[in-house]
């Protein structure tokens, strides 16, 4: 049995990742970016442990810098020049900021995808997929079965051919290609021949009868339902917040954070053409909803950990 959020129903898992990706891409607010990044990093560490450090330093950080530099050097929108580049164009404050925003959200989404592949295993994916497209799901499952089988068979054939002196690893290029071609041709003939037996086995077990159903071994429990409903509720709040433009930001031609409002105090940084409007109550609600959603799996996991430790200390 899987622990924490990983052990939840596949549909609950999928709702989470779908919401994160959709709203992570829709919102460009600095707070959402920071929260989303922090949550992704925490959950990624929680799932993969020390491996994360390596992938972060070698892949994610360079990626972030790369996007930042490319955007800064080649996108020349914005109205606030910081310096002049050798090609005569100017490096603007807006393009740097937007490059950072772009880089950060890319890195964040990639981290969520890493988490996704840990949480939504092939089994779970097949379960959801099988509801929508049962026939395709079976084909997919068969492909997962036959790819390793054929790989194995290819090795068997290559070794058998070497055993009788038809080596694809030695000899002239022409001979090697010829021997390699032979191996492939055997693989095809052999596999087609064997496929007959597999289809016999399928028919013998009633494949092709009307009313085939897809069996999934996952069951809804109360906690899955509650979590799924909570996520849907958060989604609705965020959607309203998005439609009402409560956490609206623009980075071009100059940076404006939050929509202009007739309450509170607005800050300007004149040298950078930066406007910082006060945030509305709906904006606060939206940001909170987003924060809760992002940290949901970590909260679930930590709660379970704490429960365990308490139980352990009682023993």
């Amino acid at each position, binding site marked *: 049995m899987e622990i924490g959020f990983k052990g939840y129903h596949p549909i609950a898992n999928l709702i989470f990742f779908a919401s994160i990706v959709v709203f992570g891409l829709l919102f460009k607010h600095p707070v959402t970016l920071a929260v989303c990044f922090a949550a992704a990093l925490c959950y990624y560490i929680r799932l993969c442990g020390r491996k994360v450090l390596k992938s972060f330093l070698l892949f994610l950080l360079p990626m972030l810098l790369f996007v930042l530099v490319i955007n800064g050097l080649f996108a020349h929108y914005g109205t606030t020049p910081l310096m002049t580049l050798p090609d005569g164009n100017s490096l603007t404050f807006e393009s740097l900021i937007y490059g950072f925003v772009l880089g950060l959200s890319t890195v964040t989404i990639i981290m969520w995808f890493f988490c996704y592949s840990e949480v939504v295993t092939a089994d779970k994916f097949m379960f959801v997929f099988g509801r929508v497209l049962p026939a395709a799901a079976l084909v997919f499952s068969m492909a997962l079965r036959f790819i390793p089988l054929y790989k*194995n068979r290819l090795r068997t054939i290559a070794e058998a051919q070497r055993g009788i002196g038809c080596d694809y690893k030695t000899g002239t290029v022409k001979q090697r290609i010829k021997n390699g071609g032979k191996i492939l041709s055997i693989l095809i003939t052999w596999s087609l021949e064997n496929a007959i037996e597999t289809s016999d*086995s399928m028919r013998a077990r009633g494949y092709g009868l009307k009313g085939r159903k897809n069996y999934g071994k996952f069951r809804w429990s109360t906690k899955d339902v509650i979590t799924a409903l909570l996520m849907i509720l958060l989604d609705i709040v965020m959607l309203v917040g998005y439609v009402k433009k409560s956490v609206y930001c623009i980075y071009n031609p100059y940076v404006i954070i939050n929509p202009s409002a007739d309450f509170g105090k607005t800050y300007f940084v004149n040298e950078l053409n930066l406007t910082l409007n006060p945030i509305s109550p709906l904006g606060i609600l939206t940001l909170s909803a987003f924060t809760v959603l992002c940290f949901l799996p970590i909260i679930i996991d930590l709660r379970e950990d704490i429960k365990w430790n308490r139980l352990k200390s009682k023993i």
Partner: protein
Amino acid sequence: MEQIKIENLSFSYPLSDKKAIDNLSLSIDGGEFILLCGKSGCGKTTLLRQLKKELAPHGEKSGKIYIDGQKSDEMPLRESAEKVGFVMQNPDLQIVTDKVWHELAFGLENLGLDTAEIRLRTAEMVSYFGINEWFNKKTNELSGGQKQMLNLASVMAMHPDILILDEPTSQLDPIAAENFLFTLSKINRELGTTVILTEQRLEEAFAYADRIVVMDNGGIAFDGTPEKVGEKLSTLPTFLKSAAPTAMRIFNRVGDSGVCPVTVRDGRGWLRGKECEKEFIFEEKTVSEKKAVELKDICFRYNKNEKDILKNLSLKIPEKSFFAILGGNGAGKTTLMKIISSLLAPYSGKVKIFGQKPKKCETKIAVLPQDVQAIFTEKTVMLDLKSTEKNEEKIMRISKQLYIENLLNKHPFDLSGGEQQRAALAKVLLCEPKILLFDEPTKGMDAEFKNVFASVIRSLVESGCTVIMISHDVEFCAKYADVCAMLFDGEISACSSAHSFFNRNRFYTTSANRMTRGIIKNVVTDEEICLCLNEK
């Protein structure tokens, strides 16, 4: 009660004059355990397939088959899928999905059962067949024995009344095969499911069956209890004389009358009542002093982080001998063979072929793999043989020796298992190897062809070839090999002449040896028992 009734069934394949099944009548009661035997190509598989509507081959058919009083061709597909379970030979090819749990559910999904029912049935199957430990595994991670058990379980999940099995254990090692047959008899006893089984390995299957049906040339040559087979053995088709259980064969060769022993236990009881020599005097055959293959302190592992498959293994294989390497599953037999044939290189230790390093060595080493299909490349057997050897005279000579002259114009994949093996052997022999390696060659071979195969090996050895064979087949090695070695846990744990090798073992030895232990000393094969009995 009569569950299956076959009336005057005849069947011939399209484009064939010969009838595969010829006017056959048979009736089977519910709950019987029937062993159907016959040499390969006698129509066993054709008959079994006729009982399952979905699998019945096309061809000309006359006569009738009733299952529970209903004509089999008129049976609705759904009923046929549920009622008649079918397990085939190759464990790998019958598995459809990637996960064990999904495979168990596959048939039930097809029947359109609801989730709760499927959950219940798979849970039942898992505990009945002891699948718990590998329930969440991928199907390609299983061993052959587990795969076949999974196939049986996923058929049984559909709750069939009749279970048909076409040589289900032919691809398994002896322990997995024994385990499989035991499970079958458990199903038969505990659930009352009718079992119809065909087998090459009759030694074990005879002990479980209630009734033996012997087929010959598309008809039934005999039908009765196992004991009756023993009494009538001399009048039955010849293949049975080499395929029947040891006790039965000896009983028959000695020409005794009375109740025929079936198992080793019966055989011992029967032998005790006989007068015979107390010891067999055996002359050891001498083998050449010169070594064909020398391995010294071989260590091998597939990956740096894995444990060693072979650990400081040393082995000397004498020239011009028939050398057998035995051992359980995962002992490293196949790895060892790949090292001898230099498909793999050890990370430490020395390999010498005729005293030379394998890379410098000009000696031809050929390998006949377990899956012989892997070596055919051309459209017909003849073209295939020509691709290795241009000289037609030579091809004809070898074809004659292996009885494949009439198969030369067929596609290699159209041949039966035994024929494929012969054609593959011909191809390997055309390479004129000095050292010939066989990986489990007797797997799925019928008893009669084993004799032919042994004589081919004999003549190869006599012509100066060194034959090395990896095998699970204790009886074959005892009868024909010169030297046997036991591989266990990556080391050679015993190596001596075949006779003393099996004489020293107590469990891992031939039935003849087990039968005579404590009664006649020093006996390993049937012949030796007969010699001891006849001299009195």
